[in-house]
């Protein structure tokens, strides 16, 4: 299948200093990569760089067989969004915009695709509800449906399960697993290392620079992985 994404010595700098430093790795089509690491270790910054939101200060991100507008991105939710007056359908449809060319209005096909994703994620019942009235888990499904409207190749997720209770989170993981089995490449930033290792096929452990990159099995056996997993087994590691 070949590499779908390669990061070559990517560094990203804010005025405060490097947030990502000299990170190189590559993933293949169909991979499920989990990016883990402590708070402030540059996970979000790296994901944004892959999404094309930030230009790296050095190095480059190469996409193979995916155009930039075929990347689906599920950002960390902002507080402003949680109270936004929008219907579920409005949000999901907006996923089609990057693909829609110059037309000012949505086409029949856009609407059909949005409906398809809505039924795939089992949110038909709330299609005309207001986004701000939904629970956290439902909001994430809506945002996922929107991202799937934008891509059938590469999906980027930033802490999709943060703030969800474990049952809802595991449902979301199952959905992602399903999508991945159907060939969608997934890159997920997660604070939940255990699940990351359970579901992911590859792991990237960030600490501004790359601490570990490799298969999930190797990670569980590595120093970095044992430390992280040991922490979570200890019970109080929701801070990661």
């Amino acid at each position: 299948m070949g590499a779908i994404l390669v990061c070559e010595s990517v560094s990203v700098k804010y005025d405060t200093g490097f947030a990502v430093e000299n990170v190189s790795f590559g993933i293949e089509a169909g991979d499920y990569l989990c990016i883990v690491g402590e708070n402030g270790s540059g996970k979000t910054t790296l994901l944004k760089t892959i999404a094309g939101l930030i230009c790296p200060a050095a190095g480059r991100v190469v996409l193979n067989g995916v155009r930039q507008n075929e990347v689906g991105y599920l950002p960390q939710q902002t507080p402003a969004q949680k109270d936004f007056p929008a219907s579920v359908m409005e949000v999901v449809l907006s996923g089609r915009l990057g693909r829609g060319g110059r037309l000012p209005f949505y086409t029949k096909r856009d609407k059909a695709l949005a409906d398809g994703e809505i039924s795939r994620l089992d949110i038909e019942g709330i299609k005309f509800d207001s986004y701000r009235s939904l629970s956290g888990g439902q909001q994430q499904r809506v945002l996922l449906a929107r991202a799937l409207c934008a891509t059938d190749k590469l999906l980027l997720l930033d802490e999709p399960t943060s703030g969800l209770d474990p049952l809802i989170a595991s449902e979301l993981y199952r959905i992602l697993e399903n999508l991945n089995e159907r060939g969608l490449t997934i890159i997920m930033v997660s604070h939940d290392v255990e699940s990351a290792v359970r579901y992911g096929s590859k792991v990237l452990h960030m600490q501004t620079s790359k601490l570990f990159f490799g298969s999930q099995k190797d990670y569980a056996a590595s120093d970095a992985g044992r430390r992280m997993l040991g922490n979570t087994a200890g019970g109080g590691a929701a801070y990661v």
Partner: protein
Amino acid sequence: MFELFRELFSYSFVNRALLVGILVALCAALLGVSLVLKRYSMIGDGLSHVGFGTLAVAMSLNLAPLQVSIPIVLLAAFLLLRISESSRIKGDAAIALISSSSLAVGVVVIAMTVGMNADVCNYMFGSILAMKRSDVYLSVSVAAIVLVLFIFFYNKIFAVTFDENFAKAGGMKTGVYNMLIAFLTALIIVVGMRIMGAMLISSLIIFPALTAMRVFNSFKRVAVCAALLSVFCFFIGIVFSFALDTPAGASVVLVNLAAFGIFFAIGRIRKLA
């Protein structure tokens, strides 16, 4: 009541104020939905103060007010947007500085030339007499352009308002649309400023959106409701202004405040029920 309306419509200056004002109220409300949700309300406020400064300078140099103001306020829109995008926290302070400085420049220029007269009060708080026949064509065309562009780019404006990062990752040129929103806002502020007053025009942008959001839950409904409500409040405000001889802008704002109160109560009651 009927008498009042007949008298109202018999004056051509009232008809002009109503025509331009209704278009401005409509556009301001539509843009306001996006500005309020993007937390860009400060930009509207800043632009109106810059607008006042340029109007004052144009007046004292005896230049055509709209033709001078439009390019300068557009430039200010570009700057203010840049400032608030680059650093959120310091951006607020920078916009406040630009606002008060423009106001100060305007007031000083007026005091040194024509003096603080009734015209100045009208510029600040609005006048139903403000629209000269020659202004109407330009104002109406500007408002029409704003309306058409807003409708044409409605879906994209929704996308950059709801989630700029997602839109950008999907390949949309979000910077262009942010700039479009800022430019359209600048145009509407300049055109509406003399009826509504420089101090009060930004409420025409902010109030209807906030009011509509109390009750409605989808972006389209909020936009439609804000637009209708804004036009309605503007009309009632002008009637008051005419009947009671109060400043036009201030009257419209008070009607908007009343509408907000009503919608706020409805929203609350609904939540309890």
